[in-house]
């Protein structure tokens, strides 16, 4: 029905854009024009293909040919050879990294797609408020299979064999956790879904609950069958109103269909799920604190053991898993442990969802096999750093994680590698930092969060983090001394060693990793009283360059504290003792005469 018989798609992603995609579009159009093909072939600028390393990319439709590293000069060849004569331009095809053979068809370029959607298999495809759409994509088949064909022990074995580790942060084996909960005998047991997503920059759980709530419900029922529980609870923060709404709808629909409730699939197994709302305290993501909060108590952690698998909600054996952990379960059951464990690295199986944020071009929600490198995530899928700036670091695992630098870019991401590098997987937030970010300020920012969110129960976390934050503040203000860096480190280690729960045990991670990876920057703050990134206000000095200043008085007039003096048509001067570094003068100056030192 289209008047066009062929489409040329040119990648207009930011990274390709920088390397002349506009010029490519122009020259392709010129060539088509010259050959009188403008009415039958259309050139289109698209979003990022996620293959920036080989960009700019041109895709020919309908035959799905992908050309890589295309230059504007190649337009003539593409039009003359491919469009007119129907012959593929071999030299522009992607060469298979293994066989060195050129690959012509994007359908067979699996490696070209870095992402693999397991947890996000339905997100963005189905209407989350319609259970039929979930069923059409094999929804509740896994529950059916488990209830009719498998014993609880077999299910646990399958999950154990899959090698899946908890996606909430700590990376404990899911199957083992289920096994422990199964072994503890009790008249009542509980399955809890931890949807208390609190890391700044993390939104994968929200996305799953908003996009595919049934996958979590189904997995919770599977877990209930495995451990011998009839009741499930989802602990979700009240700040996620849409996720709550869609969960409510999903639970009601599942009940109507008899997929939750009594005698599911006529097997005698009964399971139901209710929601519990949290008030949005970060510490309630810790499982013991979460359980106390559900019981109506203060959201404070308690010492483990006893683990929730022994005495959890209402003192009964309880299994707590994260949203993402659950969402993968139906796929593991249907496709098998072997399939799941074939993805990923030796000790971290499957895929991981990451929320990519910060100074990156393609901010988004991505899912990659474990073992993908940070470089692939940032520069391929993420499309590189915004505004062509230089990559400086990436904070993984939110405020509990560490900041990894350039030297870690080729580290395959998995639980153990991240720990070895001084960070953690955490929930999967990834915040990308560029050359303009100050690593002392960043550490201070994350500490500010943990100080706010510390429940205050144990002294190392309550007092220690506060002191860490103060020290970092002093360093930012130019009042730090070299010995402070050792104090930062020592105090961090003590907090890690002595805190009661995961919050305090991980909160110094940003400080430690940044000290480790950006030590020179910390030294610059305390010895030279300089902030190399130009972020710490107290360490900045606004100066007028006498060569550029024409004495127009614009800066002096806009200065709110009258720190600038000078006669008309003569060079002006900023008094650093009065200057509050608001930056108003820089914005006003038309002669680029004011700079920050």
């Amino acid at each position, binding site marked *: *029905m*289209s*008047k*066009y018989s062929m489409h040329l*798609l040119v*990648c207009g992603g930011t990274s390709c854009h920088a390397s002349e995609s506009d010029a490519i579009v122009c020259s392709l159009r010129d060539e088509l024009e010259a050959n009188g093909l403008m009415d039958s072939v*259309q050139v*289109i*600028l*698209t*979003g*990022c*293909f*996620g293959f920036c390393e080989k960009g700019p990319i041109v895709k020919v*439709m309908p035959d799905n040919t992908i050309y890589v590293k295309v230059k504007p000069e190649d337009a003539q060849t593409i039009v003359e050879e491919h469009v007119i004569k129907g012959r593929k331009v071999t030299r522009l095809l992607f060469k298979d990294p293994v066989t060195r053979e050129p690959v012509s068809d994007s359908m067979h370029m699996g490696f070209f*797609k*870095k*992402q*693999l*959607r397991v947890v996000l*298999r339905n*997100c*963005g*495809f*189905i*209407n*989350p408020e*319609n259970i*039929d*759409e979930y*069923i*059409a*994509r*094999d929804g*509740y*088949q896994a529950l*059916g299979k488990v*209830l*009719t064909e498998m014993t609880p022990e077999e299910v646990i074995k399958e999950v154990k064999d899959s090698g899946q580790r908890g996606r909430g942060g700590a990376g404990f084996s899911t199957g083992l956790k289920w096994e422990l909960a199964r072994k503890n005998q009790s008249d009542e047991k509980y399955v809890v879904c931890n949807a208390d997503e609190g890391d700044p920059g993390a*939104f994968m759980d*929200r*996305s799953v609950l*908003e*996009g*595919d709530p049934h996958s979590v419900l189904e997995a919770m029922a599977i877990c209930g069958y495995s451990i011998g529980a009839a009741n499930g609870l989802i602990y979700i923060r009240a700040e*996620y109103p*849409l996720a709550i709404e869609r969960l409510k709808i999903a639970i009601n629909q599942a009940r*109507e*269909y*008899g*997929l939750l409730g009594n005698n599911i*699939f006529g097997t005698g197994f009964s399971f139901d799920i209710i929601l519990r709302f949290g008030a949005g305290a970060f510490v309630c993501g810790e499982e013991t604190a979460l359980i106390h909060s559900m019981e109506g108590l203060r959201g404070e952690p308690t010492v483990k053991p006893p683990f929730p698998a022994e005495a959890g909600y209402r003192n009964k054996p309880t299994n707590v898993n994260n949203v993402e952990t659950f969402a993968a379960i139906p*796929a593991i059951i*249907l*496709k098998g442990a072997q399939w799941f464990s074939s993805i990923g690295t030796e000790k971290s199986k499957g895929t991981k969802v990451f929320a990519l944020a910060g100074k990156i071009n*393609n*901010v988004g*929600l*991505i*899912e990659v096999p474990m073992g993908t490198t940070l470089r692939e995530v940032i520069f391929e899928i993420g499309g590189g750093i915004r505004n062509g700036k230089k990559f400086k670091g990436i904070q993984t695992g939110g405020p509990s994680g560490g900041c990894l630098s350039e030297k870690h870019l080729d580290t395959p991401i998995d639980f153990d590698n991240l720990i070895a590098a001084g960070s953690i997987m955490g929930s999967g937030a990834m915040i990308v930092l560029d050359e303009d970010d100050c690593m002392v300020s960043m550490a201070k920012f994350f500490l500010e969060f943990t100080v706010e969110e510390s429940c205050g129960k144990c002294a190392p976390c309550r007092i220690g983090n506060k002191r860490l934050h103060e020290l970092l503040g002093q360093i930012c203000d130019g009042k730090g001394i070299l010995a402070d860096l050792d104090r930062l480190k020592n105090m961090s280690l003590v907090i890690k060693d002595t805190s009661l729960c995961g919050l305090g045990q991980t909160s110094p991670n940003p400080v430690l990793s940044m000290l480790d990876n950006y030590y020179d920057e910390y030294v610059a703050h305390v010895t030279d009283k300089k902030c190399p990134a130009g972020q710490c206000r107290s360490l900045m000095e606004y100066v007028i360059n006498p060569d550029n200043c024409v004495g127009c008085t614009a800066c002096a007039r806009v200065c709110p504290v009258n720190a600038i003096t000078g006669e008309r048509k003569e060079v002006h001067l900023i008094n650093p003792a009065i200057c509050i570094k608001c930056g108003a003068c820089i914005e006003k100056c038309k002669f680029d005469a004011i700079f920050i030192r």
Partner: protein
Amino acid sequence: MSKITSLADLIKRREEIEKGTGTLNATNPENIVQVKVAMATCGIASGAKTIMEFFSEQLERRNVAAVVTQTGCMGYCYAEPTIEVKLPREEPVVFGFVDLKRADQIIEKYIKAGELVDGIIPVNYQTIDLKA
């Protein structure tokens, strides 16, 4: 809706849905345009609701047989609002940065005439097939 009381029931139900006797789904309708709007919190915050209303209203007004549904996050935060359009017998196409102007273009050019318009987001991931 009657209860699903056995695994066989569930399988039957799925087949019904696939055949199109159930509610509309990506797998069934042959002769109808399907528009899915990414309506997670973040999509809605960047204007997805307006876009969804626009498509519902305008497709009807312009006599295009279509069904407009909401879906969850497609993952392209940088390009919100995002929509997916599936023309009959065609592969679905995702468009990003959909404002009202682009929405209008999508209806007039892509949906009505099959011409691609700028803002396409290429599929950059692999999916799994649970049946395999």
